[in-house]
């Protein structure tokens, strides 16, 4: 299947996912992967990150974003895995991978997937600190601005 979208609480095996992805990308000359990790706070105060999502809409939104990438670039395969629930610092939050005959298409489409996923897929992150404070992560104006890069004039 050209598009594989998974939304799950469980960890994923990044190495195995990428190996399998490349293995099945017949005809690809270029594979790009992006992996997002839970970053600790500057003062090392992060106890864990909690990711809430809108079950049902999430899968639809990610599927639509992947379909848009397939329509724009010559892609052989697209993989998106995004976790929700409680994650510890350094845990893998999500990954995308794209396979194309061409390097530029693989890079651009992975970058595109990340920009769209960040502002258009219904996930919300909350950072819980060791002292029991917890704050919702605020979206950045630059994330919304990043989408403008992909609007074809």
């Amino acid at each position, binding site marked *: 299947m050209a598009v594989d979208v998974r939304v799950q609480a469980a960890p994923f095996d990044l190495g195995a996912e990428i190996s399998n992805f490349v293995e099945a990308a017949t005809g690809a000359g270029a594979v790009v992967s992006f992996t*997002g990790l839970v970053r600790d706070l500057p003062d090392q105060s992060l106890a864990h990150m909690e*990711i*809430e*999502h*809108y079950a*049902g*809409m999430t899968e*639809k*939104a990610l599927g639509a974003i992947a379909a848009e990438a397939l329509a724009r670039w010559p892609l052989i395969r697209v993989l998106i895995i*995004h976790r929700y629930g409680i994650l510890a610092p350094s845990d893998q*939050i*999500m990954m995308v991978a794209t396979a194309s005959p061409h390097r530029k298409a693989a890079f651009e489409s992975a970058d595109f997937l*990340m920009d769209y*996923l*960040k*502002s*258009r*897929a*219904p*996930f*919300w*992150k*909350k950072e819980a600190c060791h002292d029991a404070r917890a704050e*919702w*992560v*605020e*979206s950045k104006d630059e994330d*919304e601005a990043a989408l403008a890069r992909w609007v074809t004039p």
Partner: protein
Amino acid sequence: MIELRYFAWLRERIGADREMISTDAATIADLIAELRGKSDAHDLVFSDLSSVRAAVDQELVDLDHPVKGAHEIAFFPPMTGG
């Protein structure tokens, strides 16, 4: 009846992740104006619309989107995935 869904800090401040309503509101913006009258918490979460996003039947929409025909309307802050 329409099912409302709340996520992230909207959910926390309203103190519920869903509620059923019936409404004659024409647009999402009209619905929000109506909801603000329901409680102080509702009034608070909808006081700054720049930090509220809406989805009708799991599709992201603008605030001038019609309410008519909707089964599920969700309100949430800007998304922070990735």
